[in-house]
């Protein structure tokens, strides 16, 4: 006797993420447009602060892409942050104008990341984390060999001083906005694509993912390179607004501490979480940053508490409790009403 299981396809329809999340996407796009006009009607201070926020969001989203979606906990992302700034510096030194140099420099970082990935992605879990940290240290030391960096002393992107402060501030802002929006879009597309699904499968069970034909290395590589590119852009924007470059600061492990904090507080493995986390971090920085080391120490405590007691972060909790989904990922089944 044979039995057929028939899927009653008339009972439901499928909805893609961009259909369900359409209102949220439109809102987001609208928000970006409004943000783009900020320099025309707001004070210079606000513009500067928002540029800083864009950098935080970029970093948080990149780290979440790595750790949350691909399970790659890197404590060496400062490598690309610093390298992005350094490449920009180098390219400007060679005569390129600053803003193209930021972009090309970040592309250069992506290429470097591709080389690093061949080696670093062989390692798992903790080994990967520390191998990345050591890699960041190696890159820092190599960068410090460059005469223009002058070792510990560092250098400045003096070319920025030739622009009017007003123009410079606004250009940085728009560059930051475009970079952030572009990377957010790329990540949103990525996590909803086959690559995103494959990455999550790898994160949950690498062997199983491999056995169903997912090219584990390739997927990890794509994610790794994209994350490096984003961090490099963030480093370039930071350089553009602060002008000075000291290797110890740009290659400092505190950047990864910040990324970790933002992602844990906002919500690992969600698209919106890191953005919320970055805003929370930005506000804390604004209001409590004056407390210096005690504030930084407190960040560590909060990160630990979130990791232990609120592992889904603020956004993850909201999603669970309220069933809130602004930008759902994947495909959902929608049951149709019976006649």
């Amino acid at each position, binding site marked *: 006797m044979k039995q057929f299981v028939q899927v009653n396809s008339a009972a439901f329809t499928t909805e893609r993420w961009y259909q369900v999340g359409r209102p949220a996407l439109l809102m987001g796009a609208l928000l970006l447009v409004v943000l783009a006009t900020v320099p025309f009607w707001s004070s210079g201070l606000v513009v500067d602060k928002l540029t800083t926020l864009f950098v935080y969001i970029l970093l948080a989203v990149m780290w979440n892409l790595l*750790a949350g979606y691909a*399970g790659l*906990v890197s*404590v060496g992302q400062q490598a690309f942050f610093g390298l992005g700034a350094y490449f920009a510096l180098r390219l400007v030194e060679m005569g390129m104008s600053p803003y193209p140099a930021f972009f090309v420099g970040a592309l250069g970082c992506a290429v470097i990341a591709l080389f690093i990935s061949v*080696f670093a992605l*062989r*390692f798992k*879990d*903790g*080994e990967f*984390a*520390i*191998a990345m*940290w*050591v*890699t960041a*240290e*190696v890159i820092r*030391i*190599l960068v*410090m*060999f460059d005469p223009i960096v002058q*070792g510990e002393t560092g250098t400045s992107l003096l070319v920025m001083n030739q622009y009017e402060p007003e123009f410079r501030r606004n250009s940085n802002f728009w560059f930051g906005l475009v970079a952030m929006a572009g990377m957010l879009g790329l990540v949103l597309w990525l996590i909803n694509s086959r690559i995103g699904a494959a990455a999550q499968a790898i994160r949950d069970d690498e062997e199983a993912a491999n056995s169903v034909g997912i090219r584990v290395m390739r997927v990890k590589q794509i994610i790794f390179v994209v994350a490096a590119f984003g961090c490099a852009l963030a480093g370039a924007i930071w350089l553009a607004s602060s002008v000075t470059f000291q290797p110890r600061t740009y290659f400092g*492990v*505190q950047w*990864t*501490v910040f990324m*970790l*904090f933002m992602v*844990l507080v906002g919500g690992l493995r969600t698209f919106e979480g890191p953005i919320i986390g970055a805003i929370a971090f930005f506000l804390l920085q604004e209001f409590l940053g004056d407390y*210096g*080391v*005690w504030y*930084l*120490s407190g*960040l*560590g*405590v909060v*990160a*630990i508490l979130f*990791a*232990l007691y609120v*592992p889904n972060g603020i956004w993850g909790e909201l999603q669970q409790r309220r069933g809130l989904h602004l930008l759902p990922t994947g495909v959902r089944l929608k049951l149709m009403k019976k006649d």
Partner: protein
Amino acid sequence: MLDSLIQGLLLGGYYAMLAAGLSLMFGVAKFINLAHGDLAILGAYLVLFGVDWLGLSPWLAVLLSLPVMALVGWLLQKFLFTRTQAAGFLLPLLVTFGLGAVLQNGLFGVFGSDTRSLANYIGDLSWDSWQITNELSVGKLPVMTFAMAIVVLSGLQLMLSFTRLGRSIRATASDPEAAELNGINSHAVHRAVAVIAMVLTGLAGSLLAMRAQVTPYDGPMQLIFAFEAVVIGGIGSLWGTLVGGIVLGISQSLGATLISSQWFQLTGHLVFLAVLSVRFYGTIVHQRGGWWILIKQLAGPMTRWSSQASIKAKATKTRIKNR
């Protein structure tokens, strides 16, 4: 050259001491503690606190700091690490990384940013050395550190091999569930290991404070050195950790002497990365049937038939060997 070899060897003793705790916790509980370096610095500051503020003699301060470190280890394991261990690899990394940030900035908040050292308090020992030949001399403190590392690691190894606690630690490391099924309280074993690891780490921190200046933010670098020593030496063996520490110390020392002082850390990092890669590609090569076969495979169509035949032969051999 010989001088820098000896300096590197002696430095390796310090690294082994620093790495022993990390190695032990990783070996027994598969737990990677990213705050390890910061805990060593905490140990150093405890001793500095005893000497600077309480006016104790340095050796008494070291002696008194060890039970404090033991308590720190016990508390961390009981209230923090155990909670993270049940939930995969992500949580321990995140939590200990956060703990590192707490410790660094907390130490800075309490003790300020000034670099500190015990060197002023230990008199001649900090700079005295034995003249071996006209050109060669070894510092007393590095020799003492090295000797202490050997003694402590040997003691630990003997404890692991021949005592009841040692057996229960090895059993838990091998299979925690089976250990439980034989009456071993695996949580208690993990706590004991954390206590031992923190005492060792505190001791390493005090030794660091004797031979160098420390600041609250030195922890991450110490973690990296410790981890490099553990990985170079091979995970899960204390003697391996000693060898790893020595290899790291010698490569740093040689890099600094032969190239330039900036290469001190870089050489160590490069050796570490090289060891990691060789170990990894070594496994791949082994799976494919050895270096020679791999080269033949890559050599192209000229040798295709013969090499494929030998791959088969070699593969069968390996399979038989594995049984």
